[in-house]
């Protein structure tokens, strides 16, 4: 029997020169131990993990280094500029991250997850400084993945500034509130992919549980970046597996094409051929 399908075939997740077999990007922060982090990364199925750049601790000689616990031949590292509040500091941090990754011979040396924050309470990005930093980093040859809000106009400006991917937040970083405004994400997708359907859009931040990931993927984003949702779950290992399944389920559902929402019911069983109601005589 020959079967045909009308839904699009899924492609590998292509981000610039990188081709990933998982659409989940997972952060390495906030785990209770490096061992739990290692196992969670494994269970999540991710091939790309984010890392932060920070001062080397010069006093604690016994302190372990994250790099002792990461198989850098297995994962593509995505260094971030988290904690930067100016374009200058973000550019410096990106250069430092690239220098370390080049020393590790990791393929992630060509890119950066750009965060230029505006406010410590909300961790909302500074959109003006983010656009400026994007332009400067692109000029220096970086592939820039931009953390931003779900504002479609800013998203488009970032793409025009040369961002490899625009990454709108579903809700504030670490808040676990999920996708607060799916309509904004829809408009971001429409604007960013208008003449360029393969342009990668990633939901970054706010994911609290598996259904949040599935909802993001069902909207048609290309990937999800998360950290706290796994790291701070009561059981991070189970949650890592749940996130892996959610990203796959959401992607499949998006490709399959959901049914439209309707106000009234539509019976699933045939409406004809029902047995005669009690007390009604059959006609001969």
């Amino acid at each position: 029997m020959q079967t045909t399908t009308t839904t699009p075939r899924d492609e590998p997740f292509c981000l610039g020169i990188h081709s990933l077999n998982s659409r989940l990007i997972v952060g390495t922060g906030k785990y209770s131990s490096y061992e739990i982090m290692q196992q969670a990364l494994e269970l999540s199925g991710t091939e790309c993990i984010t890392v932060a750049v920070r001062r080397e601790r010069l006093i604690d000689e016994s302190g372990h280094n994250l790099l002792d616990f990461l198989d850098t031949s297995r994962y593509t590292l995505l260094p971030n500029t988290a904690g930067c509040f100016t374009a200058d500091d973000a550019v410096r941090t990106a250069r430092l991250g690239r220098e370390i990754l080049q020393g590790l011979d990791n393929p992630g040396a060509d890119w950066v997850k750009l965060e230029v924050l505006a406010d410590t309470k909300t961790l909302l990005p500074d959109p003006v400084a983010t656009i400026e930093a994007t332009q400067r980093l692109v000029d220096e040859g970086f592939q820039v993945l931009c953390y931003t809000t779900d504002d479609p106009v800013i998203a488009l400006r970032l793409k025009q500034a040369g961002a490899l991917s625009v990454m709108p937040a579903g809700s504030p970083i670490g808040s676990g509130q999920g996708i607060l405004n799916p309509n904004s994400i829809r408009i971001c997708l429409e604007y960013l992919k208008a003449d360029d359907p393969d342009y990668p859009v990633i939901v970054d931040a706010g994911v609290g549980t598996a259904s949040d990931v599935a909802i993001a993927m069902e909207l048609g984003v290309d990937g999800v970046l998360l950290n706290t949702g796994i790291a701070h779950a009561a059981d991070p290992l189970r949650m890592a597996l749940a996130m892996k399944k959610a990203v796959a389920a959401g992607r499949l559902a998006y490709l399959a094409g959901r049914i439209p929402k309707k106000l009234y019911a539509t019976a699933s069983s045939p409406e004809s051929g029902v047995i005669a109601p009690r007390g009604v005589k059959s006609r001969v």
Partner: protein
Amino acid sequence: MEIFVNGQARQVPAGMTVAELLKLLRIETRHVAVEVNLELVPRTQHPQHKLVDHDQLEIVTLVGGG
């Protein structure tokens, strides 16, 4: 001479290079990047780059992050 490493003042011999400082601090060079006075000093230049009085250094590594 006095230099500042990650915000802390430190006395080191005059003319010390970045590579010599990292060795003194027993830092695994593969794990770090070094900036002197806001400018990145690439790994290949560590042996030649001589520090001068009042240099401000940032020595950074990778840590867990999202």
